[in-house]
C-alpha cells in the first residue's frame, strides 16, 4: 500500500483544486497505518486463546502446584528434575519427535503419490478424492479405537496376512517400535486425504506449458516431476510439511484411544505424558511438559518454516 497519488498528483499538475480528489484521503489513511483494524480480531483471538494462557501457564511450570494442596510454591527446576528421574521427559521428547518425523514423512509421501494419481479432474478421480477424504471426517478417538481393533493380534490385518503366512498373530501395538510406526501410519491414514487436496491444488497451479516445453526438450517423466513439478510445489510443500509435523507434535487423541502411550512408555508422546501428570493431580509437572511442547514447536517450527520459505524463493 505505498500508492498515494492524492499527495502528489494535484501539486505535480500545478493545480490547487482539492475537490478533484474527493476519495483519495481514505486510501492514504489505509496506506499509512489504517490496516490495524483488520488484524485486531486475529490478534485478539491469538492473544486470548494462546498467548495469554501460555504466559499465565509459564510460571506454573516452575511451581509445585498439585491437587494435594492449595499452596503453590516456586520450586525452580525441580519439576524437570523429577520428570527426568522418572524417565518421562527425555522419553516423551524422543517419542514425540520420532512420531512427528515418521508421521510427516509417511503422510507426505502417500499424499503426494495420491495427488499425482488423482490430479486430473474427472468423475473417477472425484470419487477417489472424496473416498480418501472420508477418514479426515472421522473423529480421531473413533479412528484410534477402529485401528486398535484392526491391529489386534487376532484382528483383520493379521487374518489377512495369515492367508499368506499361516498363524500370523503379531501384536502390532504390543511392541515399542511397531506400535510407534503403526500409530504414524494411522495418523497418515487419518489426514492424508486433506494433504492430498493441498498437493492437487499445488500441482494444478503449475503451468502446463512448462512441462510441455520440458517434454519437447526430451525430459522423461521422472525428470519432469523432479526438476519441474516437485520444485514448483514448494509453497504447497511448506504448508504440508509444517502442518503434518507440528500437528503430530501435538498428537494426543489418536494415541490415547489406541495405545494410551503404551506399551510402557513406547508411544508416550508429550501430550499423553502431560495428561497423565495432570490427571494424577500434578499440575505443576503437567505445566512443565506443556512448556516443553510449546518450546519444541517454536524451536522446530520457526527454522523449518524459514528454511522452506527460502526454498520456495529458490524454486
Amino acid at each position: 500500500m505505498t500508492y498515494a497519488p492524492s499527495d502528489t498528483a494535484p501539486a505535480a499538475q500545478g493545480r490547487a483544486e482539492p475537490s478533484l480528489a474527493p476519495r483519495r484521503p481514505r486510501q492514504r489513511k489505509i496506506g499509512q497505518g489504517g490496516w490495524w483494524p483488520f488484524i485486531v480480531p486475529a490478534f485478539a483471538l491469538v492473544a486470548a486463546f494462546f498467548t495469554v494462557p501460555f504466559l499465565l501457564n509459564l510460571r506454573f511450570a516452575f511451581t509445585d502446584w498439585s491437587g494435594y494442596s492449595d499452596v503453590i510454591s516456586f520450586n525452580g527446576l525441580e519439576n524437570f528434575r523429577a520428570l527426568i528421574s522418572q524417565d518421562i521427559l527425555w522419553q516423551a521428547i524422543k517419542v514425540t519427535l520420532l512420531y512427528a518425523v515418521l508421521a510427516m514423512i509417511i503422510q507426505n509421501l502417500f499424499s503426494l503419490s495420491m495427488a499425482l494419481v488423482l490430479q486430473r479432474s474427472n468423475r473417477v478421480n472425484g470419487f477417489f478424492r472424496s473416498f480418501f477424504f472420508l477418514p479426515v471426517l472421522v473423529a480421531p478417538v473413533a479412528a484410534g479405537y477402529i485401528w486398535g481393533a484392526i491391529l489386534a493380534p487376532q484382528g483383520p490385518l493379521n487374518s489377512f496376512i495369515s492367508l499368506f503366512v499361516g498363524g500370523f498373530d503379531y501384536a502390532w501395538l504390543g511392541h515399542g517400535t511397531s506400535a510407534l510406526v503403526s500409530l504414524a501410519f494411522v495418523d497418515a491414514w487419518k489426514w492424508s486425504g486433506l494433504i492430498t487436496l493441498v498437493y492437487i491444488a499445488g500441482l494444478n497451479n503449475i503451468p502446463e506449458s512448462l512441462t510441455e516445453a520440458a517434454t519437447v526438450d526430451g525430459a522423461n517423466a521422472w525428470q519432469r516431476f523432479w526438476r519441474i513439478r516437485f520444485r514448483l510445489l514448494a509453497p504447497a510443500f511448506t504448508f504440508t510439511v509444517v502442518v503434518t509435523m507440528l500437528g503430530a507434535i501435538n498428537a494426543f487423541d489418536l494415541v490415547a484411544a489406541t495405545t494410551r502411550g503404551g506399551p510402557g512408555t513406547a508411544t508416550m508422546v508429550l501430550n499423553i505424558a502431560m495428561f497423565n501428570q495432570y490427571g494424577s493431580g500434578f499440575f505443576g509437572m503437567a505445566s512443565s511438559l506443556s512448556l516443553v511442547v510449546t518450546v519444541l514447536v517454536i524451536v522446530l517450527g520457526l527454522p523449518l518454516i524459514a528454511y522452506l520459505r527460502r526454498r520456495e524463493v529458490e524454486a
Partner: protein
Amino acid sequence: MKRFRYAVAVAAAAVLALTACSANNDTGGGDSGVAADGTATVKAKELTVWTSTGDQPYVREAYKNFEQKFGVKVNLVEITADGLENQVQTKWASGDRPDLLEYHATALFWALNPAKNMIEMSNMPYVQRSGELYKTAGSLDGKIYAAITVGPGLFGMYYNKKVLADAGLSAPKTYADLENICTTLKQKAPGVATIYEAGGSQWPTQIQILMNLAGAEKSQNYSGELLTKKATLDDPAGPFVAALTQYKKLQSMGCFNKDATTAKSEPSFKALADGKAAFLPQSTSSLPQLTAVYGDDLAKASAAIGWASPSASSTTSAWSPSFNGTWYVPKTGNADRESTALAFIQWITTDGYQDYLTSTKRFPALTGATATTPTGINQEFWNAYEADKALAVNANLVGFSAQFPTLMSGLLSGQYTPEQAAKLAQEALAQGAKSAHVTGW
C-alpha cells in the same frame, strides 16, 4: 492513533482480567457451615452425583430409592470407568463439583485436596459403626472424608475349575504353586493360557503384584515401611523387586496369553469361561461382569469358576476399600445441597442400610445390619477374607499408583527390567509423597 491506543488499552484490560481469573486458585465452593453430625436434612430438590459407567446396579438402585423416599431428583453424571481418575481430577481442577462424589477411598482421593474441598465427616454416626476401617481408608491426617458402605473388594484370581480338574490340579496357595501349575498346564493343555493378562487395559497388570505382596504387607507392614523410608521399592533384595521378577519369570515361562501386552480386560471373562485361560487376575468387585457371561446366573458361574488368593509365600488376600458405595460430600457453597447430600449419607447408613446391604449381596462395612448369607463364589470371597488378609500395598502409596500401570506395561513389553521398573516406581512415590507433604519426604 487514538483508536489504536484505545484498542491496546482494551486488550491490556482483557489480559489483566484473564490474569486475575487464572491467578485465583480458589476453585472450591467454600464452607457453608452445614453440620456433618447426622442432623442434616433434605432441603434441595435435586442432587448431582458423579459416578462411574462401571458402577454396580445396587448403587443405582440406592439412588432411585432415595429419589422415591425423599422426592429428590438425582442427576447422574456418568464418567467412563476407563481413565475415571484422570477425568475426575481434570473436572475437579477446573472447579467443577458434584453434590456427591462416588470415588476411591485410597490415597487417590488425597489429590482432590479434601481438607479444602470436602466436608469432613468424622462426626457422622456411621463412623462409630465402622470399626478401624478409617485408619487405613477414606481419611487423611486423621480426618474422615469418605462414607464407605460396603465391604472391601479383594484382589485374587478367578480360575476355571474344569481346566484345572482335567489336568489333575488344584487351586494354588502360593506363587510357587502357580509356577508349578503353569508348567503342568503347558504340558497337558497347551492351548490354554495359564494366566490371562490384559496389558492393553494396563490397570489389571497391577493385580498380580498386589496379590504377590499381600504376604509382605501382612508380615512387615510393607507399605508403612515404604512411607516412612524404612524400605524402598527399588531395594534389589526387597519384596517389590522380587514380585516383579516373579511376574517376569511367569511371562518368560509362557504362562500368559500370547497377546498379553495388548489384550483388553473386557473379553477376559469370556476367555476364562470358555477355558481359553485358566486364571484371571481380578477384583471381587468384577463378579457381575463374570456372572454376565453365565446369563447373570450366580449358581452357574460358581459351579464353573473358583477363587484363589496366592501370595508370594502364603495365602493372604489383598483387600482394597470398595469404590462402589463410597461417597464424598464436596463443598459446593450451596448449603441446601450440601445438607441434602449429607442427608443421603445419613439415610444410606441408617434407615436405608439394611435394604441396601441386602441388594449388594456383599459383606457389610457397618455394624447393625445383617448381610445376606453368601452363596457360591461369594462364599469363597468371604472365606478368603476371613482366613488371611492385608491391605493392598498400593492403597496409601501416594503418587505410586499413578505410574504403576504404566511401569507394569513397560515390564510386560520388555521396555523395563524389574530393577528399572522398581527404580522408577520409587521415584514416583517420592514425587507423590513430596506433593502430599508426607512427613519425612
